[in-house]
């Protein structure tokens, strides 16, 4: 009897904390997910979808993959350029994600994930991204930009 009452009382009390109340905290948490989980999280509800679309979340994800060391390119500068080229979400979707999927499937990146390799990966993904952005500039939807097809990331087809 007593336990049931206590149980009822606990159910009536407010839950204490709802993550949906604090979008910034949610963003912090989602920023620690990997790409696929983040996309899945975006499908949960409207709030989560909105938070998942924040570029900062994807920026954190990209930087984790290609952790640009402090000695490498200037950090704020990178953000400006990436934003101008289309944003981190697109960078991840078009370049970083497929790149790391491909590298992981070829298997040999365990011992190799040194800072140097990560820096090379960062440069490469930015280069590829800029080419992709360049291709999008003139076509205006007539022709699919195709320089990244070799990464196997079919654009919006599946």
């Amino acid at each position, binding site marked *: 009897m007593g336990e049931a009452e206590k149980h009822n009382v606990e159910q009536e009390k407010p839950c204490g904390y709802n993550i949906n109340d604090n979008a910034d905290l949610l963003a912090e948490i989602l920023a620690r997910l990997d790409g696929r989980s983040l996309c899945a999280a975006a499908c949960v509800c409207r709030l989560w979808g909105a938070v998942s679309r924040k570029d900062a979340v994807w920026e954190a994800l990209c930087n984790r993959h290609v952790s640009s060391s402090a000695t490498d390119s200037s950090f704020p500068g990178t953000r*400006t*350029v990436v934003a101008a080229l289309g944003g981190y979400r697109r960078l991840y979707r078009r370049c970083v994600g497929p*790149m790391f999927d491909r590298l992981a499937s070829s298997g040999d990146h365990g011992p190799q994930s040194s800072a140097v390799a990560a820096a*090379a990966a960062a440069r490469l993904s930015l280069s590829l991204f*800029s080419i992709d952005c*360049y291709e999008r500039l*003139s076509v205006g939807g007539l022709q699919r930009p195709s320089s990244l097809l070799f990464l*196997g990331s079919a654009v919006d087809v599946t």
Partner: protein
Amino acid sequence: MKTEHLESCRGGGIGGFLPSKGKMMAMEETDAGMDEQLAALGYKVRASDMANVAQRLEQLDMAIGGSAAQDDALLSHLASDTVHYNPSDISNWLENMLSELNAPPIPAPTATHPKSISFDFPSENLSSSVPNPFDPDYCLRSDYQVEGRSRNRKRMRTSSSSSSTSRTAAPAIESISAVVAATEVSSTNPVVVMVDSQEAGIRLVHALLACAEAVQQENYKAADAILKQISILASSQAGAMRKVAGYFAEALARRIYRLHPTQDSFFDSAFSDILEMHFYESCPYLKFAHFTANQAILEAFSGFRRVHVIDFGIKQGMQWPALMQALALRPGGPPSFRLTGISPPSPDNSNALQQVGWKLAQLADTIHVNFEYRGLVANNLVDLEPFMLESDESEAVAINSVFELHNLLARPGAIEILLSTVRSLRPRIMTVVEQEANHNAGSFLERFTESLHYYSTMFDSLEGVAGGEGQQDQVMSEVFLGRQICNVVACEGPERTERHETLAQWRVRMNGAGMRPVNLGSNAFKQASMLLALFAGGDGYRVEENEGCLTLGWHTRPLIATSAWCVAAAGESG
């Protein structure tokens, strides 16, 4: 189960090895001794029958071991209620085995003995019913018909044994080939061909070389005859080898018949741009070229506030977004970036050159890089004068040439003029990407042989491309390379612009023109290696360092080389 190849030589004897599943040993190349040797092992074969027996052994081998799909059914069939025949009477044993194994439906109203095609004999008796070897689709068509009828989709195809026995009297080699030529590839007969694909591949290469030699000796009749055989042999191959053979055969045909590709320059230049885009997408060669050159240019530009890049062949400008992005992210901020793009005149007067500039300017604007663009139209690079490029003292100049320099070798003296123009611009760096092959020196036959190896390797590397869009890319890339092949083989004199030279030869030229090499750093190497790791099916690509230059190759064969140069100071020798 490894099959060693049977080779028939004249006179009906057999040299070579018999399949290893029986307890047989290598045969010597004697005629009368055959029977006794086999008899010593316990097998009774008539000497006159040897050719036939050997061939049917081969058939049997392929029937048993040829198709992976049929393996299980076959082996279980063999293992279970098989009647075992006495193998000592080989001819009959083979017939029985073959008739058992060939019970699965392989409809072949006619069958032929194409195996012993040999072509070092005059071929007047070839009939005229062989389809036109000019048509590059020819090989594909005949191949599809054969494949459509045979269930065995791998290279080996079997023929029914019943009809083969009717042609036993081991005929002379000459008439075998005549039979083949006349009946094999007629388009109405669904011919199922038994060909040992690997050996046919070797013979195909020999045929191509023999044809080239005939062309060199100006023996055009023989060359024409050999061409027909090339077409037949090529249809038995799969994949890259067939396509390469097709392009080389077409080029040889053009050379023999003096058919120059119709120079419709409007269609031509638009088409080659499209082809080059597909080549860019499907394989890493152009991307490798761009990335390694950009890295060298980026490093040479460090510290300069104003930079100027002169691109000898701007095409679609795909190289420059990445450089602009890297300049934008440079510690200390981007320099002001000036680009001069040079291109041949566009026949329809479209301002493609300007459009490239607009696109690049748009991109530069979004990433906040000061950008200036100038387009120069030049029929030939040698017409460039330093004043046209309007470079001033305070800016760092880089010159970029991707697959452009070799075209100048068609006119004697042109390359020296261009290099002296380059020197007078005093560039900080000149990046040169060229094919790593010697397609310019020596006789026609040497050139042919070299280019055959080179393009076979290139086509092999393209085979890994998969997927729907990838297929189209692959085909277009092959057409793109096919045009180069045509130029290398079929043209001469000033028309032959694809005059590739090796890195070593370019080193000599550049040193002679007063340039000294600049080492491409490890950053370029790492970026290139990572780029290659991204190409699916690209395990065969190799980046190698060659005395400060980088080469990209397929397995052991380097195919393109990037090098960087700067002006040697006075007093430095090359």
